[in-house]
């Protein structure tokens, strides 16, 4: 479904990604793990069209998308839940969700999408007239997930959804991610929470200093000594 081929990405003169390659098959839950500053967010910015790579290709269902602006990428069915939620703080919860279905393609089934999001996150329904900026961290993450689902993505990318959440909420977020996948949405999950990410993933890639250094199934990497030493502190 998604194929990343030897991406080099820069911020100005500074190179951040080197020949990054990986793929995500339809229906999979793939995770990209790595330390802070490894280039995970940059990779997702490239995939979503917010940053254009200097070399390499991103193919979505066989078609190159790395030159498209972000709004076109979203229209193809690739949604990103960015790091730090990036909600619209001065809009209500419901307005945030409606903005998620801005695209004509998603607007057609807006009412059903909204009902489904409210069913999955009753808290959001309770607070639908509240400003997004006034929500708690956990509620904001739910809203960010709900907003992305409103665009009816076929591939959902999440950038550290568990960041800054209490342990109980982290578990909840991982449960939701698995549920989204169970409903037929392909998932690319970026996490620093390596243990839990590897536990839910079909396959995983390790990103170190802007390069993919390891790949394997979730359980494989969980058992890998290098991974255990570097990320799990064992």
């Amino acid at each position, binding site marked *: 479904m998604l194929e990343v081929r030897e991406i080099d990405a820069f911020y100005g003169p500074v190179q951040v990604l080197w020949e990054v390659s990986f793929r995500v098959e339809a229906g999979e839950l793939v995770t990209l793990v790595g330390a802070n500053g490894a280039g995970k967010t940059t990779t997702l910015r490239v995939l979503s069209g917010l940053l254009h790579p200097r070399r390499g290709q991103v193919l979505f269902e066989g078609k190159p998308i790395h030159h498209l602006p*972000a*709004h076109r990428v*979203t*229209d193809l069915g690739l949604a990103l839940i960015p790091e730090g939620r990036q909600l619209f703080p001065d*809009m209500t919860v419901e*307005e945030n969700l409606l*903005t998620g279905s*801005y*695209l004509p393609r998603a607007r057609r089934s807006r009412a059903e999408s909204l009902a489904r999001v409210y069913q999955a996150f009753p808290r959001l329904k309770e607070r639908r007239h509240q400003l997004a900026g006034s929500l708690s961290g956990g509620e904001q993450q739910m809203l960010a997930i709900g907003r992305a689902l409103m665009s009816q993505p076929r591939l959902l990318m999440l950038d550290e959804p568990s960041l800054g959440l209490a342990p109980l909420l982290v578990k909840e977020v991982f449960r939701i991610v698995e549920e989204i996948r169970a409903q037929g949405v392909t998932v690319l999950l970026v996490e620093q929470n390596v243990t839990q990410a590897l536990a839910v993933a079909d396959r995983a890639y390790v990103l170190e200093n802007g390069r993919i250094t390891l790949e394997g199934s979730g359980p494989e990497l969980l058992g890998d000594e290098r991974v255990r030493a570097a990320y799990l502190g064992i």
Partner: protein
Amino acid sequence: MVEGVISLVQSLVNGLLTGGIYAMVGIGLSLVFGVMRVINFAHGEFLALGMYLTLWLFRATGLDPFLAIPIVVLAGGALGWVTNRVLVGPMASGPEKGYILMTVGIGLVISNGLLLGFGAHPQSIYTSYSTATFQLAGVSFSLPLTLSFAITVVVIAALYGMLNRTELGRAIRATAQNPAAAELQGIDTQRVRNAVFAIGVALASLAGVLLLPVLYVIPTVGSVFTRKAFVVTVLGGMGNVLGAIGGGLLLGVAESLGATYLSSGYRDAFGLIAFLLVLLLRPAGLFGRSQA
């Protein structure tokens, strides 16, 4: 005594009627700033362009200024769209504040173009209702200004409804609050910026039409209105569209009271004095969130 009260009310009414138009001028500037973080230094020149287009239409075809509104507003909107698409937008996304030189330059081109096309002498148009008034409780209302005020109220209300109730309005607010996140929702933020700049110029052009029947115009009138638009916008809080309404009315009233009670020759100065006073007391503007 009674006469004194009536003259005060008269001055307030005149100030509020003009202030409504100032509000509209300020809203255009404020909206563009809120979404693009660009101060359009040519805002007043676009207003001047609206005036001269109305003047030209009146002279060439006898078209009444109020009937010229749709044409001038559409022309202004189209010009705003193209200006942002071709000139301002590319500068706005650059790392330097190149847009400042760009918009200042556009303003110079417009005012000098007007000088070339229309000459430097003050011009005005005279309609049957230019000086018409009606009386209400001893206060006299200028007919064109009252009509202009009514149009302004309708336009501002429509704009407010658009921003809060429509798909485009949500896209505009989303782009203002977080452009990258807006892109991720599928919003073409470049188009949104073009649309917002178009709306800003359309509002300035409309203000130009509405002011023409009560004003003499000269090619440099734009810079006066760019300055007034700044005052209105800063009074209301940068990027705060509702605040600009309060800022506009306040500016209109300050000018009018100053002209009535102190000296009409310094009308423009009183607005600036009120502006400085407000800034001294409330640096974030009348309605801005004060920085703690």
